[in-house]
């Protein structure tokens, strides 16, 4: 017999849904994120599949030399080359291109205006200062930002929970020393370190991730620490100790689930913070290396080409839209976990 559990999670989910704005923001955000995960299928300069002379080819998955489609060279097929293009779409052959037939680094060679060029039917949002399609760069850039935000938030949250729970549960000397360490560590200048590291090591998204997560966990650890300090004196912890339950089990089974409220409420805000961090670094040129697509880099281009309004406007809409969705989700989460209303 299946019983519908009235578990805390289910109740919270029901409560979350009553905030229509947050609920729809979550749905929209999830849809957009899922779509962006398949960016290669939405915006690419290679067709999704080609039906050529009786066989199917999937250029996105495999690379085919030009000779496969009747070309002259053994190099990788350039599907936008008019010669090849003609071959694969005539004589009963079919090629199915993604909706936006540009990748983030494919340059449009047929422009008759100087780059950056304004929006046309071919380049929906125009091109950037190198002739690359802006829409493609936005889609890929959005994906990179979200993935980076998720990764940074996850690592930061895990570190924060670990640090906070150890301090809060053990208290005493451990807590004292850890707190002093945090004070010193949080006084480190992140940006300078980033610049220094960027000049020593080859800059990449991974390096940024490592560096930013080294300094991003401290805010959260304070909240988790406070929750643990408060909860460890509650009766149910004493009862568990009286039963003989071990310390680590108590931390995981009793204290952590009850102390997750600040963690969950802060998640969307941490994510928007992470996205903004990446965007700011990219804007300054200290972020992901070219030719990686990034929103910050587009903003920097927009700044140096003020007349090219399509650069700034489109990036602004994507960036602000994402952050607004996250903030609505965050507000809804905060309402859900409001202790006065449960």
């Amino acid at each position, binding site marked *: 017999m299946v*019983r519908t*559990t*009235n*578990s*805390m999670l289910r109740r919270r989910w029901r409560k979350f849904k009553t905030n229509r704005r947050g609920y729809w923001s979550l749905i929209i955000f999830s849809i957009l994120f899922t779509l962006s995960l398949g960016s290669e299928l939405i915006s690419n300069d290679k067709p999704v599949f080609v039906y050529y002379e009786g066989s199917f080819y999937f250029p996105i998955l495999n690379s085919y030399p030009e000779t496969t489609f009747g070309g002259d060279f053994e190099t990788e097929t350039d599907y936008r080359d008019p010669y090849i293009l003609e071959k694969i779409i005539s004589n009963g052959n079919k090629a199915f291109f993604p909706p936006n037939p540009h990748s983030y680094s494919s340059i449009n060679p047929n422009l008759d205006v100087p780059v950056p060029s304004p929006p046309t039917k071919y380049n929906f949002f125009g091109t950037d200062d190198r002739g690359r399609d802006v829409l493609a760069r936005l889609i890929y850039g959005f994906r990179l930002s979200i993935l980076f935000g998720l990764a940074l938030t996850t690592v930061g949250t895990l570190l924060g929970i670990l640090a906070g729970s150890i301090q809060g549960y053990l208290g005493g000397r451990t807590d004292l020393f850890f707190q002093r360490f945090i004070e010193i560590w949080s006084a480190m200048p992140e940006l300078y370190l980033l610049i220094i590291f960027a000049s020593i090591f080859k800059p990449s998204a991974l390096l940024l991730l490592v560096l930013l997560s080294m300094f991003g966990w401290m805010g959260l650890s304070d909240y988790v620490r406070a929750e643990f300090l408060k909860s460890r004196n*509650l*009766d*149910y912890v*004493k*009862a*568990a*100790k*009286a*039963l*003989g*339950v*071990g310390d680590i089990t108590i931390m995981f*089974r*009793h204290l952590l*689930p*009850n102390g997750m409220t600040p963690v969950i409420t802060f998640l969307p805000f941490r994510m928007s913070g992470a996205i903004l961090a990446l965007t700011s670094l990219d804007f300054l040129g200290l972020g992901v290396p070219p030719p990686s697509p990034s929103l910050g880099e587009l903003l920097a281009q927009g700044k140096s080409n003020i007349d090219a309004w399509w650069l700034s406007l489109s990036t602004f809409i994507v960036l602000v839209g994402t952050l607004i969705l996250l903030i609505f989700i965050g507000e809804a989460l905060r309402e859900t976990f409001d202790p006065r209303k449960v």
Partner: protein
Amino acid sequence: MLLEIQNLNAGFHTEEGFSSVLHDVSLSLDQGETVALVGESGSGKSVTALSVLQLLAKDSFSSDGEVLFGNENLLVKDERDLEHIRGNDIAMIFQEPMTSLNPVYSVGHQLMEPLKIHQQMTDEEARKQAIYLLDRTGIPAPETRMDSFPHQLSGGQRQRVMISMALACRPKLLIADEPTTALDVTIQAQILELLQELQREFNMAVLLITHDLNMVQKIADRVFIMHQGHIVEKGLTHDIFSSPKDPYTIKLMDSVPKGEPPQKKESRPLLTIDNLHCHFSIKKGFFRRKVGEIRAVDDASLTIREGTTYGIVGESGSGKSTLGLCILRLVSCHGNITYNGKDLLKKSKGEMRSLRRDLQVVFQDPFSSLSPRLTIFQIISEGLRVHHIGNTKEERRRIVEEKLFEVGLTAEMADRYPHEFSGGQRQRIAIARAIALSPKFIILDEPTSALDMTIQAQIIDLLRNLQEKYQITYLFISHDLRVIKALADEIAVMKNGRIVEKGKAHEVFSNPSHEYTQQLFQAAF
């Protein structure tokens, strides 16, 4: 009639709709009379009191009916008129003295406020009157106390300050909402005496809201019994107590803990405490040097025999809970605790773990003693897992359901969460958790103090039955002397960490030899 509540219907607007709290409540009070409104938690007595002065938030609370004070209906008055009545003609004192006094203003400041507002006194006049009132209510050194803050006073003193504030303008009616529930027994007696004195002096009517039947019998002229928003019975105190008519009233009267534990034959000592000390050091200064210590448990010695209930009685701060925690080794202490021949204080953590199976505990607050995110099954089976009782999930499930049945609950409750149960049910779950390991010794730290009287009676019966069935030894810690009298075979009285008297229960109760014990018994019975 000074106050007449007629056909009051009221309720709250919540997310789920309108929740009706009072149904056709009618009450009357004459000048100089003391009327008690008795009921358990959730019966609507506080809501009735608060609605007299329209103290509940207008946006969620709506009421219907009449509250006649003198000849005017208070429910239709607007704020300005009400302000003139509140504090002036009708005053109110609340249950929790700490949250009723503003912690950031001094006592004197708060006391002078009603005087300045209602009687337009100048600062000097108000100060003199305030000092007089503090003195009248028994606060020592009132002049210096004027500048103290609420946190610097004890609970009893804060309640006296509250009473002074309430009486500052000589109101015609005093509404007292459980004024002594949060106080110790001896302080309770003093506050009640004070109230009676002041009532006679000012010819004031008192509407006393309480669940303590003892208090009602002592000072009330008439009684109204409330149950789930209805007034189920009313009449003179004497009549209600001698011949209650309504079934709920009869049940309530019946729930007063009574009887004595059955005679048990002499058994061997199970737990012996010798010279137990639990001290907390007070450290001050930059180097955290020890400047003094708080002796929570000071040289305690007692012997508990197998299969009996040992009661520890004391007021708040006496060290009784700390004693229990010391036995469980949840706080550090030194001395000698021998259980079944084994010295508990010498055991390491690992050795202690296997012994914990025999020593279990039930705490006071049913709301914080169960982990809110675990199901009942998980809560009760936690101990089973630690001590490897029941090797498969099905076996553990069977044991859990068995224990739930023992405490009077049903098996299907095992998949629900603590928040879905009432206080009494949660306490039963806590007891089920304690007996899941089939312990020989259970420490019960005020297990019924947070519960209503009718529920308390049920829990006491349950505990008695379990003891008889399984020969479990209880260490029952409480400040409620009536409960101890009904359950304990032997008792010890604690004050300031020391055991001032101990011995067989019926001997100590009939012939208390220590002065403090006599004081305690006089206040309680």
